């Protein structure tokens, strides 16, 4: 992966997608020694409504820190899909929460549908870890960092009392994508 790889996490403000972006950037830059830059929507646009976090990963130093053409995009809500699921590369991938994104943005990219919030609530047990489910899913989908590097970064970020919960969330998110891709 010599070239830059661009990932965008989008959803509603408060869903933890900025944290998901930071964890991915830590997985890449701290655990795998790659170059990574994370940035996020900021200010009025980050409060309520749609929010986004972008991560650029490369083997080379990263100059321009913002997205140019997105390789992989996550949209947790319809509003975020409408606002941020654009500029996706031809042959790229869009992961949506299939319970919330009904009107799927059209384009020359693959769409993977998973009920992310429902998975967090029913399979993991807490809706609050939907961002970690989504992170596991995005890593499985993009292979941009190893499964282990991602998990290590998740566990380094969360309080001790929630280690198992987040580990489970990450793992289930990862497996859901593998199933979706095989199915």
């Amino acid at each position, binding site marked *: 992966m010599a070239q830059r790889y661009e990932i965008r996490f989008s959803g509603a403000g408060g869903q933890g997608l900025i944290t998901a972006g930071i964890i991915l950037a830590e997985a890449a*830059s701290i655990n795998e020694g790659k170059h990574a830059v*994370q940035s996020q929507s*900021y*200010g009025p646009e980050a409060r309520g409504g749609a929010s986004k976090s972008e991560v650029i990963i490369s083997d080379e130093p990263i100059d*321009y820190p913002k997205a140019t053409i997105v390789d992989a995009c996550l949209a947790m809500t319809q509003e975020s899909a409408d606002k941020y699921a654009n500029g996706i590369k031809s042959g790229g991938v869009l992961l949506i929460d299939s319970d919330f994104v009904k009107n799927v943005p059209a384009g020359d990219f693959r769409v993977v549908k998973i009920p992310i919030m429902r998975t967090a609530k029913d399979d993991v047990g807490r809706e609050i870890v939907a961002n970690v489910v989504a992170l596991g899913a995005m890593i499985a989908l993009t292979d941009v960092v190893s499964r282990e590097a991602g998990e290590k970064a998740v566990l380094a970020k969360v309080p001790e009392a929630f280690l198992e919960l987040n580990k489970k969330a990450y793992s289930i998110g990862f497996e859901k994508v593998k199933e979706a891709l095989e199915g």
Partner: protein
Amino acid sequence: MAKKVALLQGNSACAYGALYAGCNFFGGYPITPSTEVAEVLSVELPKVGGKFIQMEDEIAAMASVIGAALAGQKALTATSGPGVSLKQELIGYACIAEVPCVIINVMRGGPSTGMPTGPGQSDVQQAKWGTHGDHPVIALVPSSVQEIFSETVRAFNLAEKYRMPVQVLYDEIVGHMRERIEFPEPGELEVINRTEPTVSPEDYKPFDPSFGDVPPLAAFGTDYRFHVTGLNKAADGFPTTKANLVDDEQRRQIRKVDGNQPDIELNEEYLTEDAEVIIFAYGSTARSARYAVNELRKEGVKVGLFRPITLWPFPEKRVAELAKQAKAIVVPELNLGQMILEVERVAKGTCDIVGINRVDGEPINPGQIIAQVKEVK
């Protein structure tokens, strides 16, 4: 042993850089997009015995920094354009009273409240001319998280070495993005402290030019007692209107920077050697420019990047040389054309100079620079 690494926001790197440099006082008033500098220092300074004070406004914050610095501390404030505007009178005071201190300006748009959450580079001339009167100016413009750390250290060093306020300016993009940083080990980066007097308290004169252009500075609260004023002053610190003393004092202060430019100046050049087009860019804009250079080089375009890291004093000599070498210089800026005026001044008409300007809160993307370079080449 492997170095400590972290994924850090630019503003956090500034705070840790300040701590590395020995900063032990922060006086500030939170303002977007600089607030994280204060946030981190409010947690970290007490751990090292330092003081963090949130003042009632930006003016008081600057006053507290001057007071702390005169009491022997290494003092910092961090703000954005509106705060820097408020601080100008006291920045002038720090200049004339020769008070070492560091001012961080995380730039957003303007004037006035402008667009608090958007990036800008429209305070770069303010850094030079913001406060009235002739005075020396040092301003640094880092463009990465690692560089914010190291340039904050260098800002303290220059402030201490030349006994004057030093400004560090970076835009919201660099301030808020997160990148991997390697923390330098203690001793790895040079840390300079001010020269203290060796004469007895009775013989001490705070502005005595016989010690050179940078007279030693004693700390209030020690045995040394001295007078500080915003008026032009004689060697003993008391006001004077004697023409020769006023003239000598003002010229000495300017000489601190003009006479030491090689020590203060820091630039990065990328593929400028054979370049027919030079991009002059700083801060986040230089990152877009470097991306553009790489893309254009793939197409065989002879283009290079000149990136000032010290913006003031302006790198006159090198820019003049590049202007003679190049057909054109392209100057992208997140303002309506500020540093381009300096490039034009020193180029003296020896090449074409074209600006790319953006003030809509969005970054200048590499595509804009690529298109402009192709047009001028």
